């Protein structure tokens, strides 16, 4: 039986906090109003450690793009950065102890598993100032998640002292590729 994709409560909670921080309670209310009743019910009682259907995160990110990002998905990169920052206060600080870009990138696959129960993050290339990352075995993956992952990675690299960071999406599962792939550069 095919495993159903799920996302951790902490990702959803940080997403809610991102909207509230940006647009206040009224903005959050507007985003949540865009969701169907069932999803709204899930968002009314999120628990950090629990797993929720992956669609929950996708629906929320789409509503976020519509209400806050005015249709532009770049807002999700900001969301990813916020989630990383929000979680730095929490478990992520354990990983940031290895304060070099290469070392933090090596930890990403483990961190991915903390957020999603599906998909394998693989580091195909890791050099002194660049890396190639692939996300495999996640056919339901939506592009909104990719943007959030980019934002997340951007922030974690910044925290290790890297600058002039560039992230380029070279493949996208939602667009028909077998996997999603990103080329990352930094100085």
């Amino acid at each position, binding site marked *: 039986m095919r495993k159903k994709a799920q996302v*951790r409560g*902490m990702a959803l909670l940080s997403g809610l906090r991102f909207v509230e921080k940006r647009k206040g309670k009224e903005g959050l209310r507007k985003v949540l109003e865009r969701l169907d009743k069932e999803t709204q019910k899930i968002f009314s009682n999120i*628990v*950090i*450690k629990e797993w929720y259907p992956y669609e929950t995160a996708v629906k929320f990110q789409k509503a976020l793009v519509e209400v806050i990002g005015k249709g532009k998905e770049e807002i999700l990169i900001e969301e990813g950065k916020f989630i990383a920052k929000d979680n730095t206060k*929490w*478990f992520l600080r*354990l*990983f940031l102890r290895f304060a070099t870009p290469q*070392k933090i990138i*090596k*930890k990403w696959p*483990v*961190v991915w*598993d*903390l957020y999603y129960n599906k998909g394998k993050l693989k580091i195909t290339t890791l050099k002194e100032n660049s890396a190639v990352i692939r996300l495999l075995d996640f056919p339901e993956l939506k592009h909104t998640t990719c943007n959030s992952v980019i934002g997340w990675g951007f922030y974690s690299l910044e925290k290790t002292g890297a600058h002039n960071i560039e992230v380029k999406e070279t493949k996208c599962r939602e667009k028909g590729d077998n996997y999603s792939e990103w080329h990352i550069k930094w100085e």
Partner: protein
Amino acid sequence: MAYKVGVIMAKKRKKEKKTLEQLCKKEKEEYEEYVENQITKILGVISNIALGDLNVQAEREKNDVLGALADGINIMIGEIRKRETQMQERINYSLKRTKELIEIIQKAAAGDLTASAPISDRKDEFDALAAGLNMMLEEMHERDIELKAKIKELDKARLILYSLSEDIQEEKESVERKVRERTAELEQERAKLAAVTENMTIGAILLDDKGKAIFANKAAKNILGIRDDKDDILEIFFIKFAKADVKKHFLECIQGKPHKIPEVEVAPGIFEISFLCIPDKKNHKKEFFGHLIWIKDITPQKILERAKSEFVSIASHQLRTPLTSIKLFLEMLADEEVGKLNSLQKDYIENIQKSSERMIKLINNLLNVSRLEAGTLKIEPRLMQLEDFVATLIEEAKPLDKTGKCNVVFIKPKRKLPKIPIDPSLLRQVIYNLLANAIQYSLPGRCNIAVKIKKEGEDYIISVKDTGIGIPRKAQPRIFEKFFRADNAVRLFADGSGLGLYVIKMIVNSWGGKMTFESEENKGTTFYFTIPTKGMKKKKGEKGLRHWWS
């Protein structure tokens, strides 16, 4: 050759060394990667634990320090899970018990007070709470039953009250109508009363139970000369009638002792003052509702009485003078000083003498009454031995017993009495009169008279007891009235004037004594009169009394 071998060996060794170094480097890199991967995995596990997810396990790859660390983490996860399970059980238990209690409370709130919370054998805080709740519910249930019973009673009472309310309303209207009618009547009565009190000639001062004057009518104000309502009525009253010692009588009246001053002459007239107590009939403590002072102007009455007495006195004197002459001439005729009389003439003369003596006696009595009523009788006491004097009087009265068959005894006190001031003329009048009556109203052969003196308190009591015809019960209340005679007395002795007892009672009263009697028809009568042990007080006045027999 050796050199070549050496070189070859050296190269070989160098090569081997290099190979060994390469091997060591690779092994080191592999180990470092192993360590890093293992630590990353352990961090992942720790992150899950930090998130609260205990459904993870650290992988043990080698039997080294990192493997021991993974084991330690797994033991820790197991312990946390165990604790979490216990905690969850405890929470579930608490929730279950709380839910039970809430259900009971909800039932109670809905009105079902018969429910009770289950109590387990654990005897924990929930059981204590359940026991407390059950006690509270039992108490509430009992109260509820009582309350319902009371509500039932109240409902009954309400129904009764409701049914009564109409009756009450009718009754109220009826009472209000009666009150209006009664008020109108009272207004009329009050107006009448005001008209009466304001127009009556008797002065009235009404006092409250404390003796404060609360009303004085017009007559009272006129008598007291009050013009201003602010004047102190009582003070003016005390000053005006000071000579009659009214303040003393007023104070006694306040204490519940009524008093009457029969006559006090104060300008511009003569007044009779009465101090009356008005009892509060509704008060069981026998307190007074108030007091009343009557001031009656008796001036016209007194003037009339005096005029009458003067008339009687003058008339009596005028009658007595010719009667004295008649008496003398009759004595001369009877003694045949002016010629012999035949037997018929003697009889006539004797009859005329008796009639004239009766007229003299009557006139003397009338003169005495006149003096006594005018209050002008003088009292001239002198020191005397009372029992000796009474004995003398008894001897003097013996001739009154014409038959000589009356037995008169004198019972003296056991001890000799001291001399006291006595007016002999007045005392003689009283005792002589009583003895004359005793003899006169005794039937022949049954005439026993006893005179007795005894001391009682501040008085000497002198009694005259006879075995005569007695005073009928019906006549007893009037026996001291002027001109009154009982029927049996009239039948026995037709010539009496009815003034004797009236006169002697007034004489006794004049010296401050009291006179009473006991009598039974056909058995006899006893008259009692008193003389103060201190004797009689001297009183200035007109002449003494005339002896009715002289």
